């Protein structure tokens, strides 16, 4: 499709500004001015609206398509939460509460942050929460910084972080960014982290163990408490990647499993929209011993019930976001939790697990299931049986696009060859699941009888398969850049 820049016509204008109502002032010396005008498009408002509306329709989205993308929890995003976040009364300049007496002007916004943190503490079983981190991976980085601050204060000499080989790529990347070396522990044939190898690898130099539970295979780590106890005996902290929290709400809490630090992906568990890849929000929760290091300001509550910005944490790691986190996202998560309430959160978890087990059961005759046991909120198949017909997981993914379904996550976790990771989510009905199951079974059949429809898919999408090699070799990331 044409770019907005290609629709530009000299002299055409879009949204206007009021005429300047103040008398003209002195002009700025030439040397401070840009020489050429920025190459922004010259288009009308309708040009812009139509261009991006048409573009938007090229996307698959939760509102338009089934989206069983494993590890991403693409559940329905309630519209009421959008409405709440759009209330003009929360559109406040973030410096206001930092001004003298300014907190009085922002009590409502501070209340939202304070109370949502309290609810997240209860859901995760942690002692204190901080909403600053701006995404899941950012929460991980902040969490590992807290771990580092804890060890530094105690005089511990720690150098490494342990992750299982099924972990998200962000776990080792976050730990490395905080200055740690990575030790990777392989998984057992039952999908759990190898406890014996873990025991061998653990020593006084290990700062933290980063895990998600259930893990990325959708399997609950049954020895998690033993792992945590053993880690703690070396003063090694337990880090919980909250990516899969949707599987356990009201059933078990990371804090009770022995985790010391957690981050939450509110765009996964608490129904805030993914926005095409962001904004998310990644609040971090900690046990008591880590509270002194949390980023500031925290949100405090006076005995008279008013809320304030709490900077009184001399051992704080500092500042990890410009203000108090992604407020516009956090307020949606808060509204979501209140809407569902206790019963609703438990119900969401139960239905997420029910849906995943149903899908797993119905598909396992047709696809290789490397870990054949009760799963939690997601299940991981392998397309390795389809390989004999030269059909890969990627081909099945592309075929699904032709059927109007967003593909599951493929090729992750890395430890499963030809992985197809399906997370149905709780907001999908049985008939949607049955429809998806039929199509997946059809794909397995076609792999045998008519592989071409998979190998050359998609046929009906806005584009056929793009040449990614060309994109990487002949880099073109800016329309106006000429080599």
């Amino acid at each position, binding site marked *: 499709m044409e770019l907005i820049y290609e629709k530009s016509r000299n002299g055409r204008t879009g949204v206007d500004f009021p005429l300047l109502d103040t008398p003209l002032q002195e002009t700025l010396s030439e040397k401070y001015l840009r020489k050429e005008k920025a190459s922004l498009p*010259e288009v009308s408002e309708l040009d812009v609206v139509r261009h991006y509306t048409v573009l938007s*329709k090229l996307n698959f989205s939760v509102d338009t398509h089934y989206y069983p993308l494993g590890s991403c929890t693409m559940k329905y995003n*309630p519209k009421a939460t959008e409405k709440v976040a759009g209330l003009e009364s929360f559109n406040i300049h973030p410096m206001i509460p930092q001004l003298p007496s300014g907190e*009085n002007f922002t009590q409502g916004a501070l209340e939202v942050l304070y109370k949502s943190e309290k609810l997240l503490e209860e859901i995760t079983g942690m002692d204190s929460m901080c909403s600053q981190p701006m995404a899941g991976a950012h929460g991980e980085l902040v969490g590992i910084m807290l771990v580092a601050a804890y060890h530094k204060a105690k005089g511990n000499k720690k150098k490494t972080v342990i992750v299982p080989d099924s972990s998200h*790529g962000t776990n080792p990347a976050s730990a490395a960014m905080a200055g740690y070396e990575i030790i990777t522990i392989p998984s057992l044939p039952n999908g759990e982290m190898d406890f014996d190898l873990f025991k061998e690898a653990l020593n006084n130099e290990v700062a933290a163990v980063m895990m998600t539970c259930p893990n990325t295979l959708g399997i609950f780590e049954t020895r998690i408490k033993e792992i945590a106890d053993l880690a703690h005996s070396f003063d090694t902290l337990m880090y919980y990647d909250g990516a899969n929290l949707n599987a356990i709400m009201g059933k078990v809490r990371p804090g009770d499993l022995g985790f010391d630090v957690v981050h939450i992906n509110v765009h996964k568990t608490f129904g805030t929209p993914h926005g*095409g*890849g962001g904004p998310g929000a990644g609040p971090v929760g900690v046990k008591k011993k880590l509270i002194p290091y949390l980023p500031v300001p925290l949100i405090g509550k006076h005995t008279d019930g008013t809320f304030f910005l709490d900077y009184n944490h001399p051992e704080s790691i500092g500042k990890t976001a410009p203000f108090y986190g992604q407020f516009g996202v956090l307020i949606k998560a808060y509204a979501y939790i209140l809407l*569902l309430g206790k019963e609703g959160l438990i119900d969401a978890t139960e239905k997420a697990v029910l849906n995943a087990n149903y899908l797993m059961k119905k598909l396992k005759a047709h696809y290789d299931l490397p870990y054949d046991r009760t799963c939690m909120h997601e299940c991981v198949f392998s397309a390795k049986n389809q390989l004999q017909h030269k059909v890969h997981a990627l081909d099945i993914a592309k075929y699904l696009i032709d059927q109007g379904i967003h593909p599951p996550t493929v090729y992750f976790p890395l430890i499963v060859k030809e992985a197809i990771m399906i997370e149905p989510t709780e907001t999908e009905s049985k008939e949607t699941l049955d429809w998806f199951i039929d199509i997946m079974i059809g794909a397995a059949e076609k792999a045998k009888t008519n592989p071409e429809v998979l190998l050359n898919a998609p046929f009906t999408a806005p584009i056929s*398969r*793009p040449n990614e090699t060309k994109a990487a070799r002949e880099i073109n990331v800016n329309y106006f850049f000429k080599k």
Partner: protein
Amino acid sequence: MKYTPHTETEIKEMLADIGVSSVSELFKDIPESLRTRFFDIPKPFSEYEIIEHFQKIGKKNKTDLLLFTGGGYYDHYIPSAVDALSSRAEFYTAYTPYQPEAAQGTLQSLYEYQTAVCAITGMDAANASLYDGGTGVAEAVLMSFRLTNRNKVIIDGSLNPIYKKILHTYLDNLDFTIIEIPHQNYGTNREKIASLIDDDTASIVVQNPNFFGTIDDFQDIADMIHEKGGLLIQTVYPLSLGMLKTPGETGADITVGDGQSLGNPLSFGGPYFGFIAVKIKHIRQLPGRIVGETEDKNGKRAFVLTLQAREQHIKRHKATSNICSNQNLIALRGLFYLSLIGKKGFQVVASQNYQKAHFTLTELLKIKGVSLKNKNPFFNEFVLELPKNASETVEKMLSKGIAAGIPLSLYTPEDKNALLVSVTEKRTKEEIMKLAETMGEVLWN
């Protein structure tokens, strides 16, 4: 309110198919002793109640303040079509465009976004956005360490204090050195910077306009650092680029900043987006997602995530950054904004900010004892020396419904009487006169 569609009959059928008798059997892997017994979460709200509830909480905020508060985050006009387009569910309920055939809308938009960032900054290549300006500065500095194999960064003291704090939080536990050069008359202390650049200096971070609103031309600093094999990182207030010399023209290697001013509400501190753009030769060290143009197998134009081998999902602990998501929807709002106001509007809005701020200064200088602290020209923000304590003045002004600015004593206690005042295109002549009049009364009555 529940969003699960399961009927009792369906649940029974599904359980029978799975081969278990109850949902609780599916949770058997969770050891009994660890189960949650008490889950202290309130009862559900209905949809009607939730909206009422938040309207009520919202009333506890006071949002009709007349804003002259900036500090890197500004009250600009947002065209209606920005909200309309970003409210399209096809954009906001989609996920990361890992499947390009099902995400051309997001991918092409991001390519256009990257192009817009390059167009306004005069750089070669941009990524698909970072969390915000502050973490963007940290990423840029880390990038400069990787590119030069050096580990020292010099930062101009007139950099936004929020960025400085975030940078320290990111670097303090690592093997890097940050040297901060205090500002001189609310501008850059060039002599001091020149004396400190050495062969270990990876980069210098400067800001234009700086935190105090001062405009500068950093070409000389670019030359100085390049001579020593280091890099210039320039952070910018993107809206000012409708007027000001671009980082590209200045010779910056990396430019970074906060995109809030481009079509995004203040929203109590977020979500905003960070933009980062570089000279093409540095592209492989850029963190985060990048979209590239290519062709599909029929030769049709197509867009994909590219150079993914830099990223954590492939390179894990050796990745350029741990960053996974971008601020997609917020960055797209920036694109919608820039497209809607277009080439001309971008110039107009910058110029109005400049004009109105200068008019405001003229009016405020009429108050007895008020003077300007910036030595160099400024854009839409400036530092006033008040005849009285700035913090107390701001408090009194707030009680009269005016947020008159940021007392610099929040950052440097010795700056007792200094006030940072910001003016955007939204402030009318009448509002500016009201600011001046009220400040006169507060100071002298």
